[in-house]
Structure formats: C-alpha cells, structure tokens
C-alpha cells in the first residue's frame, strides 16, 4: 500500500519534472539587458515629435521592466539625440549598430532623417522602425529592413478629405502648403489635388509658404480675393495654426482641413479659438474613450506637464510592445553571438506583423513596410480633437 503511494508520488514528480523541462525556455534570454536603440531629434524645430515619441517609448519600457522585463532580462533603451541634423542621424545609427550592438532601432522621427538613415540600416542589416514618418515611399525604397509603424499621409487623409468635403459642401478649395518640407509638399501636391478632383471640388488656388515664415497676410489676402469655400493646409502644426489665425483675422471664415502634421495638440495650443472646427486625420487619438488609451494618456500627461500625447507617443509605445512580442515569439536569444540572427528574427517579425492591438489602434505592416490601420478623422471641438464618425 505504501509502496504504491510512494510510486504514485514518484511518477507524479517525474511527470512534473518532464513538464517543466518541456516548457519552452522563455526565461532563457541571455545577456544582462535587451538593448533597443532610439534615435530622436531633441533639438531643432520638430522637437515635439521627438520628445513625445521618447516619452511613449519610456512608458512602455518602464511598464515592461516593472513586470520582469523580456524573458527575465530588463529592457534598455539607448537614446541618441540627432538635433534634427541628418549627418548626426547617420553617425548615431552606426554607433548604435556597431558599438552599442542594439537589436533594433526605433526611429528616426523625421522623414528627412529617415531618408538618410534607411539606406544605412538597410546595408547594415538591422531594422529601423519609425513611429512617425509619413512621407510616402520611404520604406518601399529601402526594403527589407526599413519599417514605419505609421500610415503614410495619403492613406491617412483620404477618408478625412472625403468626409470634410461632404460635411461642409466644399466645391471650391484653396490649398496652402509648406514647400520647404517634404511631407507637407507631398500632401499639397500629390495628396490634396487628386483627392479633391475625385470629390468634384475645384482647386482654385495653390500657394506656398516656407518653414520660417510667420507673416501670412499677403497669402490670405490673395486667397480671399478668390473666394474659396474651404481651405486645405499642409504645414507643421504651429505654422498651420497661425495660418488659420490669419484667416480668421481677415474674415476668411471658411472650413479648414489640415495635413497629418497637425494631428498634434500643439495645433490647438497655438491656434486656440481660431482653429475651432478644423478637420484633420490621424493614426491615433489621445481623447479616445478606450481604457488603455486613457491609461496611457494619463501617464503621458504626468510625465509631460499635462500635455496630451501626439501620435508619435502612441506609436512609439506600441512599437516597443511589438518588439517585445517579436522577441518572445520568434526565439530571439539576445546572445552576443546571435546578434545577426536576432536582428533577422526581428525583421521577419515586423514583416509579418498583423492586427496588433495597440493604443494606436489595430496595426499591421503592409508590403511596403508601412503601417496599416484605420485612421481616425478628427475635428477640433471646444479645444480638443474629437472623432468624427464615418
């Protein structure tokens, strides 16, 4: 009788031991840190995108480390500031890849920096994921290692343009765009005009501003003369907001739609009451009622003096979690001798990304290496970006 009990216990013990041995060795990551490189501009004109993205990434990193890291090993972000200079971006990318030996790079932020960095990472066989770049074509030209976890501006804007033109019955539209900025020029020349044509709206004037312009009196006076019933603006958030202010100041009170660079709380902060009613499109929405978004936004606001996060923060946060997921699923070992293989595993993981449920919506990566998700159409209502239902 006792023999059977002992035998039973021994068999159970053996079975347990077997079970334990057979469980995938997840807690088997080598090294003392999982290193992810981050390249952001923390100085220079587009600094808010860089700062927000960095904070988003830090929030993710802190959360992950608070629950034990990845495979038992803490996540470490190695952050370099490009100061919005493309030469720096190149040198720092190389530093991260060779000296710091990171597994993957988050960034760059600016499309102009991506244009310089993507060819480099493509040659060095390491993945770079930009959470913010929106200019069409950049990842497509740098396959297979370049990715952007963001919608390109044309995909983001199409539904918004349609809704705006319909809701406001816009038949004659004027376009203003920043001709010294790649993304804005792309929107002003390649996205807005064909979209409006399709919607049956006539483009009655198309004028440009330059990055450092602050006076728009001449531009608005000219537009006023042409009497548009809607104005489409493609420029950085603050400049676009000031353009709208000048419009209101001169009495041009027609509806406004902006490019994706304005899907930024900065637009409202600068424009204040003048930008009430303006439309835009974004991959993300800070005031979404989704509880995860609320939690993230709250944490972000704590870290940034009550400022709301722009889409860079959301996308960076999600990207870090996506990276974690790929590391766990694709068998990344983090051993120094496996560096090249691990980087490949991360590449395959990003390539195959489908329907990742993040705070920035459900994301997949398309064949061009760009993000694919449902963009949100936004309207400024009472000083906040509010979703416009399709």
């Amino acid at each position, binding site marked *: 009788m006792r023999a059977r009990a002992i035998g039973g216990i021994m068999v159970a013990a053996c079975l347990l031991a077997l079970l334990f041995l057979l469980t995938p060795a997840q807690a088997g990551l080598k090294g003392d840190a999982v290193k992810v490189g981050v390249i952001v501009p923390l100085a220079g004109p587009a600094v808010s995108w860089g700062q927000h993205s960095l904070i988003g990434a830090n929030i993710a990193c802190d959360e992950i480390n608070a629950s034990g890291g990845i495979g038992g090993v803490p996540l470490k972000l190695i952050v370099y500031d490009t100061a919005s200079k493309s030469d720096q971006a190149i040198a720092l990318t190389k530093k991260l890849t060779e000296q710091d030996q990171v597994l993957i790079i988050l960034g760059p932020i600016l499309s*102009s920096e991506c*244009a310089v960095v993507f*060819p480099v990472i493509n040659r060095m066989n390491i993945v770079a994921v930009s959470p913010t770049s929106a200019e069409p074509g950049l990842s497509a030209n740098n396959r297979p290692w370049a990715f952007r976890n963001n919608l390109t501006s044309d995909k983001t804007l199409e539904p918004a343009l349609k809704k705006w033109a319909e809701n406001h019955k816009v038949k004659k539209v004027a376009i203003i765009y920043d001709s010294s900025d790649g993304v804005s020029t792309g929107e002003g020349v390649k996205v807005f005009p064909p979209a409006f044509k399709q919607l049956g709206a006539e483009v009655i004037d198309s004028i440009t501003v330059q990055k450092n312009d602050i006076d728009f009196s001449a531009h608005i006076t000219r537009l006023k003369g042409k009497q548009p019933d809607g104005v489409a603006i493609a420029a950085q958030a603050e400049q676009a907001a000031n353009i709208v202010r000048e419009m209101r100041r001169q009495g041009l009170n027609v509806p406004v739609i902006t490019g994706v660079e304005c899907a930024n709380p900065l637009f409202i902060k600068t424009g204040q009451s003048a930008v009430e009613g303006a439309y835009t499109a974004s991959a993300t929405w800070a005031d979404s009622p989704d509880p995860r978004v609320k939690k993230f936004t709250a944490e972000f606001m704590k870290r940034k003096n009550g400022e709301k996060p722009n889409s860079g923060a959301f996308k960076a946060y999600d990207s870090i979690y996506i990276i974690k997921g790929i590391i766990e699923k694709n068998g990344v070992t983090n051993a120094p001798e496996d560096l090249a293989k691990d980087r490949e595993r991360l590449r395959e993981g990003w390539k195959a990304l489908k329907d990742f449920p993040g705070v920035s919506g459900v994301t997949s990566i398309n064949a061009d290496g760009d993000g694919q998700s449902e963009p949100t159409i936004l309207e400024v209502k009472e000083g906040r970006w509010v979703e416009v239902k399709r």
Partner: protein
Amino acid sequence: MSGYTESIFIFMGINIIMALSLYLPCSAGQISLAQAGFMAIGAYTSSLLTRDYGVPFYPALVLGGLLAAMTGVLVGFPAIRIKGIYLLLLTLAFGEMVRVFFLNFTPAGGASGMGGMELKTNLVNVYAIVGVLILFFSRLRGSRMGRALESMSDDEVAAEATGVNIVRAKLVAFGVGAFMAGLGGGLYAHYALYIDSSKFGFLLAVEFFVFVVFGGIEVFWGAIVGSVLLTIIPEAVRFLKDFRMIFFGMTIVILMIVRPQGLLDKQLVDGIARHARRLYIFRGVS
C-alpha cells in the same frame, strides 16, 4: 575602425575640403559665403549624373566640380569690383539663391530632397583628395599665382601697380575654390545618400567661414586645423548634452578674444617648419 568613427572622419574630411575651398578666395582678400551654394551644385549635379544617367562616380564628381567652377567664375565677375562686407553679402545672396533654386527644382526632388545615390565615398578617396589639395596649396605658396594672391590680400592697389592681373587672379580664386566646393558636395552626396536643399543654406556657409577663421585665415593649414577641431569638439563633448553647443560657441568666442588671428598664423607655421627642419637635420647627423 567602427562605422561610427568612420563617419566622423569622412565628414571631417569633407569639411576640410570645404574649408580649403573657402580659404582660396579668402587668401586673395575675398570673403565668400557662397561655398555652400557651390557645394550644392556639385552635390546635385554629380548625383543626377550617377543616379539618372549612369555616369560613373569619378567623372560625375569632376563634372559636378566643373559646373560649380563655372558658376564660381560667374560670381567672380561682379566680385571683381566689390570688396569687404559687400562681397560677403553678394556671395551670401548668391548662395541663398542657389538654395531656393534647388528647393523648387522638381527633377532633383524639390522640397523632398534627392536620394537613391550609391555609396561611393570612403576614407580613401576623401583623404586622397585632401592630400592632393594639401600638395596644391603647398605648391601655391611659392608660385607666381600664390604670391600674386598674397600681395592682393595685403594691398590690392599696390599689387595692381606691380603688374598683378587682379581680374584674372580673382576669377581663378573664385573658380578653383568653387571647383573644390563642388567636389566636396559630390563626396557628401555619395556618402549621406540623400541631399536636400535646406542643408546648403547660409548657416552652412557661415560654418565653413568659422572653421577657416578659427583655424587661422593666414595659412591654409589653418583651414585644415579649424575643420578638424571644430568637427571633433562637438562629438567629443556629447556628454555635455544640452550644453554641448553652448560650449562650442564659447570655444569660438574665447579663441577670438585670446588669439584673434586664429589658431595658426604665418609666424607659427613658419616657426614649426623651422623646428621640424632642425630636428630633421639633427637626426640626419646623429
């Protein structure tokens, strides 16, 4: 050598070439803030040639330099009668016009910039060109043209009185300087693999100007030393983070107070050369 260190050295080499391209007209007493514009011409031309017309790298590089040189001579003409601050402003305006031109020039990408070039620049060809330039400037000092330039920068009227062809000297200085700048541009484009007009603005021209004056405008070695130091210092003090550029600015101000002629001047360089020769002779003896 890691890729990171290599980048620093390549950018340093290109800066040296650009600073030397500025030194040449300066040595004739002509301050030019147009070198960034010539750099842009060289960069865009060579890139269009290699990327869209299949021209091999070195010929494209030279062609870019030549186009820049022709533009340099063009700018040289009005520059003949213009001096001092007026020349500074003329070249500044010209450089900016080049930038605005490329900003709106859609076959080369316009505001989106231009990419897709192949990586052709490396430490070898950059420093080979630097070496050739060093040889050029060393030879120049003793040559007729060199002495003509020197006399012009001291006193133009006197130089003309002694038979120096001022017009030709100025045009040559501008043209050859622009050629060098064009080479620098081509090398840059085929390393960064992406160029955009906003980079070639007057701020860049001013940067080169600072390199030359900081290192010492009297001798060509000044341009080299200035470029080397002012490229390395911002990298070396990365640990200062937010105060990095403040430190950089302070270095410049302090040097101008302490040694306004720049780090190197004729006296110093001649002194070093004399000491070097003495050492060499001694070694030979012992």
